[in-house]
């Protein structure tokens, strides 16, 4: 089972809007996806990611805009004619049909001959490891097994594009990790173009070729996971990705450049950056005995493999989070020094957008590697 790849984009959306009464669920979404790529629609609940998926599937009609799949305009086609398979959050298995009947439902509806149906059922069931459960009813299966039936039902259609709406949200953590890898492997093996909706950034980062981060009905950033992590395009993107997410602190004008409130001696950016926001990834900050930004411990969260420290800067009120490996049981109030990384992120206060290429003239004092305070 593999599908011919198309020279063009597998999916192309142009200014897709969806209006529910007065509220715009989708406020002009444009995006492209290459054939065989794994696209994750990521965002908090209510951001429009599920609506976008439903519009793609044809379960909702877009208010305006065009949807092209493999170069074919499907904007006005009913779901059955779009050549898309879909896995629903609730799995949406037919409760009155057996596993086998569930899987071949679509083939029957499309008039695939019985012999062909049987062969494809066997293939699909084997692919997801369901061969021994074909006669059961969905109610007799565990959550993980139901998930596999939904997967098999989607892939047996051999549609080049597969949509998944938070398919793993009803599974426990261990099974979720397992299924995550399985779905990714299946997608690569069948060369499917996958559009996968989730609110879980770990799922997005680990599975995707392309992450489409959404917020309030528009695309906040459309990039690879690495790019999204390394160069967040907006303050929202910065604080959505990472555990814990990027810390954002407000820069103020100081002597010789922009500084943080409460730590006037440490110039972090050129003077014109005052009033903007500085972003630092907690895992890139290093604790130091001697030099760096003065701070005090305000709290420590031990997570097993690492500890997340909340540090109040200088005599001020702004907080930077610091992720250090292992257990680091510093009592509240302990004075520490923070060495910031060379790569700092700067965001515009008014627009929230990333300010590209600000001259960082202050790299040298913050580049040492020792971690003296916690060991």
């Amino acid at each position, binding site marked *: 089972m593999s599908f011919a790849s198309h020279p063009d984009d597998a999916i192309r959306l142009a200014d897709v809007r969806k209006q529910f009464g007065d509220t715009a669920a989708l406020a002009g979404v444009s995006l492209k996806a290459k054939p065989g790529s794994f696209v994750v629609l990521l965002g908090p609940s209510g951001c429009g990611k599920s609506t976008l998926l439903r519009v793609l599937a044809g379960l909702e009609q877009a208010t305006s805009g065009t949807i092209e799949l493999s170069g074919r305009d499907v904007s006005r086609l009913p779901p059955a004619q779009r050549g898309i398979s879909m896995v629903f959050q*609730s799995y949406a298995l037919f409760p009155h049909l057996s596993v086998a009947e569930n899987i071949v*439902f679509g083939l029957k*509806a499309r008039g695939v001959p019985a012999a062909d149906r049987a062969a494809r059922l066997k293939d699909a069931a084997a692919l997801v490891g369901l061969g021994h459960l074909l006669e059961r009813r969905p109610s007799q299966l565990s959550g993980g097994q139901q998930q596999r039936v939904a997967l098999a039902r989607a892939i047996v259609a051999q549609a080049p594009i597969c949509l998944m709406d938070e398919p793993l949200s009803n599974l426990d953590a261990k099974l979720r990790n397992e299924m995550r890898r399985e779905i990714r492997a299946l997608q690569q093996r069948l060369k499917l173009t996958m559009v996968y909706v989730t609110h879980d950034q770990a799922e997005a980062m680990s599975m995707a070729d392309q992450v489409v981060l959404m917020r309030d009905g528009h695309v906040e950033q459309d990039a690879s996971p690495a790019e999204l992590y390394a160069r967040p395009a907006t303050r929202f993107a910065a604080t959505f990705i990472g555990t814990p997410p990027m810390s954002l602190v407000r820069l103020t004008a100081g002597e010789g450049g922009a500084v943080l409130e409460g730590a006037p001696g440490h110039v972090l950016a050129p003077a014109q950056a005052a009033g903007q926001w500085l972003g630092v990834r907690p895992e890139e900050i290093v604790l130091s005995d001697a030099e760096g930004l003065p701070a005090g411990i305000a709290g420590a969260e031990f997570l097993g493999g690492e500890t997340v420290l909340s540090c109040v800067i200088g005599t001020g009120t702004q907080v930077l989070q610091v992720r250090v490996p292992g257990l680091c049981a510093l009592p509240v109030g302990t004075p520490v020094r923070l060495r910031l990384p060379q790569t700092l992120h700067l965001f515009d206060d008014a627009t929230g957008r990333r300010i590209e290429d600000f001259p960082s003239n202050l790299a040298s004092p913050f580049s040492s590697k020792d971690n003296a305070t916690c060991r």
Partner: protein
Amino acid sequence: MNAVRFGRYALNGAAGLSLGFILLPLIFVTWLAFFRQEIPSFPPEGYSLQWFTAAANNKPFIDGFVLSLEVAVVSTLIGLALGVPASLALVRHRIPLGPGVSTLLLLPLVMPGIVLGTATYVFQIEVEIATQIPVMGSLGGLIAAHTLVVIPWVVRLVTASLAGFDRSIEEAAQNLGAGPFTTFWRVTLPSIRPGLVAAALFGFVTSFGNLEMSLFLVGPGRTTLPIAILQYLEWKIDPTVAAASLIQIVLIGAAMIVTDRYVKLSRVV
């Protein structure tokens, strides 16, 4: 602890009493059907099966049974055909005056049978005068009236089934290539089957046993079984009626048991 135990005894006792209250008439009817003497008196003089033979040979009973069966089956089918789309519309669409329509459809269930009968009687006569079509006393008129008492059951039970219905399975069917008709026929209807079966059963029983409304609407030579029994009782009080009732109880009980094997009625009603 004693209070808990006392509570449990009280609950079980109350449940037992209620059950006895419901079952007692059935038990007496069953007992009476086997009495040998003609005038029911206690204690019985002996037992016999003669009243079953009498009931089976009573032409008005047989004709009434056939007519009741005919009317109940047809009006149940019509009730389903009208009630299912109505329930779908009520549950899935915001139709104007939705709650009002819903109440209207359930109304025949709470309306006293005499009132319903009188109203239908007057209405059918008016229709007959206006259109010159003989409605009053016709089989069609009777079936139409019985459909009226079937519809509330269908609407109530099917609405309940649809309330917990996961609509994503219909979307899945459409995504898999099924059109609206196939989706309805192969996914929606089978998923609410327990509600449909229960609705059909209760609609059927309600129509089959209806006396008060039918009294107004039957024509000469067209008598339903409950009316035939009533007419018999006007002249005679012998266990033939008890025997006929027992046959009905057994038939309906059997229908419920068979239905329950396929659809757990306790889960729907």
